[in-house]
C-alpha cells in the first residue's frame, strides 16, 4: 500500500472527561478520563468485553456516552455539526459495505455521501492504494474476508479523515497484508493524523504504535508510551487483574 498523501492534518485533540457508557446493567466504560493529542498513534488493548469497541464507537460519534463528556478540541461532541464527521474515519467489526454492489460502486456511493468532488477518480485511487484495483468490479458478496476488510479500510480512508478509528483492523488479514497494514498506518501517523486502533493480540499489534492503552472492565489498566518488551508486562497485569476479579 503506497503512502497516504502528506497533508499535515490539524487533527483535533480528543478529551474524555469521566466518560461512562452503560448498557442496562452492564458497564462498558467506567469513568474514563483520557486525552488523545493530535498525531498520536494509540493502540487500545484488552480482552473481549474490556470496552475497546465501545470506546472506539463512542469516539466515532456512533454511541452517546451515558455520563461524562467527550470533546474534540473545545467542542462538546453532542454539539458538533454533521459536517464534523468528515474528519473521522471508522472501521468496525462489521464491514458496513453493500453485498450486492461491486467494490467500486460501494466506494462511489460513499464518496457521494461524503460530498467528495471527483468521486469516481478518488474511488479508483483508494482501490489502488489498498491493492484492490483488480477486484474493483467484484461484488462484495464474492470477496474473501481479507479483501472485504481491506475494502472497509478503503471506505474509511476515502475522505482522508484526520482521525482514524479502527476496531481490530487486522481481523481476517493474512500475515503479509497485516504487515502492510502496519506500514500504512505508520505512514498515516507520519502525515500528522491521529490513529487509534484496537487489538486483542498483545504482541502482534504493538510495533507501530507510540502509545499503548490497556483496558479491563471499562477501566484503564495501563496507559503509557510504547516500549520493547511491553507485551510481557501487560500480560502480567492482565493476569493479576483477572485474579483480583475472580476474588
Amino acid at each position, binding site marked *: 500500500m503506497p503512502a497516504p498523501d502528506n497533508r499535515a492534518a490539524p487533527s483535533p485533540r480528543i478529551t474524555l472527561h469521566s466518560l461512562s457508557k452503560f448498557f442496562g446493567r452492564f458497564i462498558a466504560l467506567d469513568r474514563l478520563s483520557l486525552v488523545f493529542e493530535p498525531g498520536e498513534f494509540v493502540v487500545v488493548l484488552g480482552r473481549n468485553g474490556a470496552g475497546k469497541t465501545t470506546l472506539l464507537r463512542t469516539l466515532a460519534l456512533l454511541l452517546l456516552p451515558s455520563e461524562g463528556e467527550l470533546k474534540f478540541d473545545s467542542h462538546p461532541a453532542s454539539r458538533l455539526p454533521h459536517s464534523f*464527521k468528515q474528519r473521522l474515519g471508522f472501521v468496525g467489526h*462489521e464491514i*458496513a*459495505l453493500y453485498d*450486492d*454492489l461491486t467494490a467500486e460502486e460501494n466506494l462511489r456511493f460513499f464518496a457521494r*455521501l461524503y*460530498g467528495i468532488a471527483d468521486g469516481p477518480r478518488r474511488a479508483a485511487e483508494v482501490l489502488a492504494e489498498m491493492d484492490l484495483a483488480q477486484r474493483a468490479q467484484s461484488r462484495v458478496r464474492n470477496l474473501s474476508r481479507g479483501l472485504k476488510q481491506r475494502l472497509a479500510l478503503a471506505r474509511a480512508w476515502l475522505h482522508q479523515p484526520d482521525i482514524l478509528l479502527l476496531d481490530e483492523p487486522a481481523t481476517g488479514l493474512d500475515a503479509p497484508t497485516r504487515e502492510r497494514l502496519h506500514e500504512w498506518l505508520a505512514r498515516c501517523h507520519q502525515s500528522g493524523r491521529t490513529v487509534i486502533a484496537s487489538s486483542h493480540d498483545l504482541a502482534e499489534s504493538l510495533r507501530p504504535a507510540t502509545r499503548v492503552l490497556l483496558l479491563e472492565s471499562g477501566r484503564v489498566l495501563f496507559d503509557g508510551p510504547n516500549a520493547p518488551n511491553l507485551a510481557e508486562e501487560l500480560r502480567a497485569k492482565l493476569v493479576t487483574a483477572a485474579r483480583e476479579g475472580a476474588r
Partner: protein
Amino acid sequence: MSAWRVATALLRKDLRAEWRTKDVSTAILLFGFTIAVSFAFAFKPTPDEARLIAGGLLWLGFLFSAVLGLNRGFARETANNCLEALRLAPADPGSLYLGKLLSNLLLLLLAELVLLPVFGVFFNLTLWARPGWLLLILLLGTWGVAALGTLFSAVSANTRMQELMLPLLLLPLTVPVLVAAVDLTTLLLAGRPMSEGGLQFRLLAGFDIIFTLLCWLLFGYVLEE
C-alpha cells in the same frame, strides 16, 4: 443541495441493488399475488359486489405486501451493519430518510402497477377507465404508507421482533390512508364523479405532508444509539 445529493445517492444505490437481487420486488409481488388469489377464493363476488368490495381488498393487499417489502428494504441496510456507515457519513439524517422514502415509494408503486391487473382479472374490474385518477389515488395512498413505513422499518429493525413490529406499529397508524384510499378507489370503480371524494383527497394529501415532515424530522433519532 447536499441533501438532494445524499438522497439521490441512496436512491440510486437502492435501485441498483434491487435490480440485481430483486429482493423487495419479489417479496411484494409474490405476496401480493397470493393475497389476490386468496381473496378471490374467499369472496367469489358477483360483479356488483366486486365493485363494492374490490377497493378494500386491493388496498389491504397493497398494505400487507408493502409491510413485507419495507421490511426487506431495510434489511439491506442492516446486513453487514451498513447502517453504521450511513451514520458515520457527514449527511443529515433527514436526507437519508428522503432517499430511503423515494426508493421505497418507487418500488411500491411499480409493484402495485403490476398487481393491479391481477386484481382486475380476479374481480373482473375495469380499472383503467380513468387512469389519471387511478394513478393519483395510488400515488397519494402509497406515499402515506411509505412515509410512515420508511421510518418504522428503521424502528422495527432495532427490535428483537423485527418482522412483527412493523405491521403492529404501521397498520393502526395508516388507518386514515386505508379509509380514504379505499373510499376513493370505490368511487372510481363505481364510476361515480371523483368530485365526491374531495374530503378524502384532502385527507390523504394532508396525511402525506404531515407525516413526511414529521418522519423527516424524527429519522435522526431512530438512527442514534
